[in-house]
């Protein structure tokens, strides 16, 4: 006989049994009651989001049972192409309830809808959200995915909290009692801590251990791998900018899979995307600027404990800067990184040129960049071609350097230089050799 996975066998049957998530329960209940009164609420869809294994799907199932509603579930294992969705969902969702019985359409893991293989699926869903006559509930781990934007704007978003170790340990304890197995309390806590916040994964691990023999701390150590729970950058940003509580914002930056230098760059670019009120903008940047100062202090002193404050400032400091609305503009890739990559060769030309001239006029590169190059730009871009060409020859500038200085006029400057050079009587003999004298 096939053994039933414990996480299904011991799934919560009632709303009450779902661990914690009190706020989400309140919101979902109020929303469903709105439907039951016969009038669809303003938002016809809910998007439940939060880490895996915290009870999103279970809670919807429990509500359907408790409120006696029909439930149509579609999850990632079903095909969700346009046609499939149109057939199954559209009909059900626009059907007028015959016996006053509503049908919850539960779309599990919508962040898993692949825009390529599940062609058009999102569009159908998005249209559905405008006209649905039945409640539509979706779940996602990462609601900030780009692909979900059109859906996100039409839904009410309901956050789910990560479960605490104590809550998960208590759940494991209850399951052990029901299954009649004896368990080491320390082992349960270990399983709970190894599955930070994810009840489903913890229950799976418990089952695996129990079926292999004794559930002891050693066995836990041996069998369980550390489950990486790090957040990708998009989720980090979503969690951070929408966080209302300090802990959530702090978790976003400390559990990101990106290192803090990268994170600083991403946050730096995305503050103006999400905060439009200058008050919010200023508070956020002030916090971020302080964060980089803390980072500097950590590096300068070798006291890495200062990083704690850096995280406080770049996470909660930025998140709680908002008093106004968070803009719906999407997150973007850091422009600075792109600009630096694109301008790499240009910057190299500039540095080489500055070094060359600094040596000749006996000044520093920094001073040349600030006080001499601006005039060279004027000469090369606005001045006479002869003057620019003469300087190109005088300093044996490479073609790349001339391009850097002259921009669109580079070709003209080069050809003028060729003429100047070739025009001189004593150099005529060398003409055949070309221009390698100055075009190295």
């Amino acid at each position, binding site marked *: 006989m096939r053994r039933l996975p414990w996480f299904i066998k011991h799934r919560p049957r009632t709303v009450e049994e779902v661990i914690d998530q009190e706020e989400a329960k309140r919101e979902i209940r109020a929303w469903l009651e709105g439907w039951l009164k016969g009038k669809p609420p303003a938002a016809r869809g809910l998007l439940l989001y939060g880490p895996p294994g915290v009870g999103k799907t279970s809670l919807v199932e429990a509500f359907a049972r408790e409120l006696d509603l029909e439930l149509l579930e579609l999850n990632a294992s079903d095909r969700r192409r346009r046609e499939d969705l149109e057939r199954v969902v559209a009909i059900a969702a626009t059907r007028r309830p015959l016996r006053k019985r509503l049908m919850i359409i539960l779309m599990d893991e919508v962040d898993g809808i692949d825009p390529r293989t599940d062609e058009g699926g999102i569009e159908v869903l998005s249209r559905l959200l405008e006209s649905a006559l039945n409640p539509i509930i979706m779940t996602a781990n990462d609601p900030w995915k780009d692909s979900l934007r059109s859906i996100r704007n039409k839904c009410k978003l309901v956050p789910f909290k990560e479960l605490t170790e104590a809550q998960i340990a208590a759940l494991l304890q209850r399951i052990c009692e029901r299954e009649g197995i004896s368990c080491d309390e320390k082992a349960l806590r270990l399983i709970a801590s190894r599955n930070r916040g994810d009840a489903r994964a913890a229950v799976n691990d418990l089952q695996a251990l129990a079926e292999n023999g004794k559930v002891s701390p050693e066995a836990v150590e041996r069998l369980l791998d550390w489950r990486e729970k790090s957040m990708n950058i998009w989720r980090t940003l979503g969690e951070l900018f929408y966080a209302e509580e300090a802990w959530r914002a702090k978790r976003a930056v400390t559990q990101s899979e990106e290192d803090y230098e990268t994170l*600083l760059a991403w946050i*730096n670019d995305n*503050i103006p995307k999400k905060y439009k009120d*200058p*008050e919010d*903008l*200023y508070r*956020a*940047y*002030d916090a*971020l*600027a302080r964060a*980089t*100062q803390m*980072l*500097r*202090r950590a*590096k*300068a002193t070798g006291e890495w404990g200062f990083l704690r404050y850096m995280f406080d400032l770049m996470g909660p400091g930025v998140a709680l800067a908002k008093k106004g609305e968070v803009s719906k503009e999407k997150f973007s890739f850091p*422009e*600075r990184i792109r*600009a630096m990559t694109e*301008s790499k060769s*240009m*910057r190299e030309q500039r*540095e080489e040129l*500055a070094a060359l*001239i*600094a040596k*000749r*006029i*006996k*000044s*520093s*590169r*920094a*001073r040349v*960049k*600030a*006080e*001499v*190059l*601006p*005039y060279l*730009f*004027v*000469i090369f871009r*606005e*001045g*006479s071609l002869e*003057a*620019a060409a*003469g*300087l190109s*020859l*005088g*300093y044996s500038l490479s073609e790349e350097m001339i391009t850097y200085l002259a921009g669109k006029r580079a070709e003209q400057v080069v050809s003028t230089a060729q003429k*100047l*050079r070739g*025009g001189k009587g004593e150099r005529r003999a060398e003409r055949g050799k070309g221009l390698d004298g100055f075009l190295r």
Partner: protein
Amino acid sequence: MSEAELLWVEKYRPRTLSEVVNQKEVVERLKLFVKERNIPHLLFAGPPGTGKTTVAHALAHDLYGEDYAMHMLELNASDERGIDTIRNKVKEFARSRTAPHVPFKIVLLDESDNMTSDAQQALRRLMELYTGSTRFILIANYPSKIIDPLQSRCAFFRFVALSKEDVVGRLSYIAEREGVRYEEEALDAIYEISEGDMRKAINVFQAAASLGRVTVDSVYRVVGLAKPREVREMIESALSGNFEEARNALRKLMIEYGLSGEDVVKQIHREVFSSDLKIPEEQRVLIADYIGEIHFRMVEGSDEEIQLSALLAWLSLLGKRARR
């Protein structure tokens, strides 16, 4: 028109002390050292473009002749900030053999007021250690940034901003040699703009000459072109609440023009106190206060773009308050 051309600041740089037309007092004292064929450690201080570096080279030239560069190590504290680099180079140079006809070698340390006080302390030990074989010439804009123990080891020479006669005289000399046509008032205008900085005056003059006859208008045109418009635009975008546009301008300044965070901060500061910028008077002080704070953080080594972004956000906020 000759074929190859140089920057006039290089081409018309005085090579010997006698060619130096200004800083007469300084030059006379230095000529005495040349006569005695001995110099103490020297500290040249004064505003930019007043001839400090030029005079140091001319002095070495007069002491050692055309090949003076063989006996001189030139370091620039702006580009070689680490005292370790300086220490290693100085050590290596001081230990190398001194040519028999030369009594000592010279270490020229330009922009030495850009050294941290720790680095200056280390330099002080170097000066003591190698004083037998090596003389140091320190060059600085602000002598107050040079620690006392270094100052007390050096003979102090103050360079003053050039007079109008010096600047105009030099420019007309160059004009004659280069065949540049100009109107007299244009040279006055260049002097005003240069604030007695000869390097700047000559650069402006050369750029203006490349546009044709040098007129007051062409001089101002050059100055306008050479000053990145982005600084003013950046400030105005920020004040009008367009933060992202302001930040794009900031990136252009730093990435394309290669300005350092400190350059940007200085330019913003200058603009903030310019009467062209129409903001409530008391805001100039509020901005300066914040500029000072982020400037300090950048000197400490914090991320420059993020610090400057915070400054732009502050400008946006002040702009919003002023509109209310």
